[in-house]
């Protein structure tokens, strides 16, 4: 039975034909189960947000005006880049280029730190303007969605640290752990994409 790493590489190279229905997942299926469950939970948060928004769209619109679109976009670009770097890490590890892979994941971590730093800066700016969690419905959701997302990013730091630890030593270097960590990080990324759209940009 071919290892998942070999299968994905050969699929990429086009040397293995795809059996209908069959496939390979990135990393542990267990992590995918968790990702899907989290998607369900966040979907409920997003839907509740939209329902509250439609109860008072004017309020939400006026409050949203206080948000810095620039910081939101900056955060999004950082997140997308970090995800890209993580995908490159997985690919490098697959090709056994562990030095490069290690560098990619450290860069991913750096992006993550920058993301959190920007977020905290943004929150403190809003707080100084007197816009706190209990200011109005919009701000409940703003702080809650960005806050719970930051918690996921912080957990992601632990996950990425495990990946770094794996790549550093020749005795470890489990491809599955690297891929599992990547799966978690990509989840954090696409959840942010939706939060950005719903909280910053939609009108």
């Amino acid at each position, binding site marked *: 039975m071919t290892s998942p790493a070999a*299968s*994905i*590489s050969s*699929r*990429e*190279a086009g040397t293995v034909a795809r059996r209908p*229905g069959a*496939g*390979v*997942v*990135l990393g542990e299926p267990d992590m*995918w189960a968790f990702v*899907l469950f989290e*998607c369900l939970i966040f*979907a409920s948060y*997003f*839907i*509740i947000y*939209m*329902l*509250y*928004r*439609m*109860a*008072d769209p*004017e309020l939400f*619109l*006026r409050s*949203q*005006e206080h948000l810095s*679109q620039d910081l*939101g*976009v900056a955060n*999004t*670009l950082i997140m*997308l*880049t970090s*995800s*890209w770097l*993580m*995908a*490159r890490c997985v*690919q*490098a590890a697959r*090709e056994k280029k562990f030095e*490069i892979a290690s560098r990619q994941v450290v860069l991913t971590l750096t992006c993550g730190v920058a993301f959190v730093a920007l977020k905290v800066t943004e929150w403190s700016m809003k707080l100084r303007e007197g816009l706190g969690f209990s200011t109005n419905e919009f701000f409940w959701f703003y702080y809650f969605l960005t806050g719970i997302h930051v918690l996921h990013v912080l957990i992601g730091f632990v996950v990425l640290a495990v990946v770094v630890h794996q790549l550093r030593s020749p005795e470890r270097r489990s491809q599955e752990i690297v891929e599992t960590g*990547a*799966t978690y990080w*990509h989840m954090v*990324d*696409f959840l942010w*994409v*939706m939060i*950005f*759209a*719903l909280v*910053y*940009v*939609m*009108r």
Partner: protein
Amino acid sequence: MGTNVESRLRAVWLALVVVTLISWWIGSSHGHQEFRSSAPITYAVLLIAAVKMRMIVRHFMEVRHAPDALRRLTDGWIALLVIALLAIYSFKLSMPAV
């Protein structure tokens, strides 16, 4: 690195960045005088978000190589979520403001 894969990943990243900048431009270009509610902008923004999520899931998370069940599940979740959000937005469904 396998240059095919490397260039594909870079292309996906560039597309994501460009599309983000487009949705940022859409959301802000009308905002100089009035920050107004706008259905076309919301539709565009949410659909773009769906496209971005799908790209991340397909390419970065390598779901293009995953079993059909997972591919359908992830596409389905993205589609259902965006449809639900747009439906709530369009029909102004709301939570009894408790």
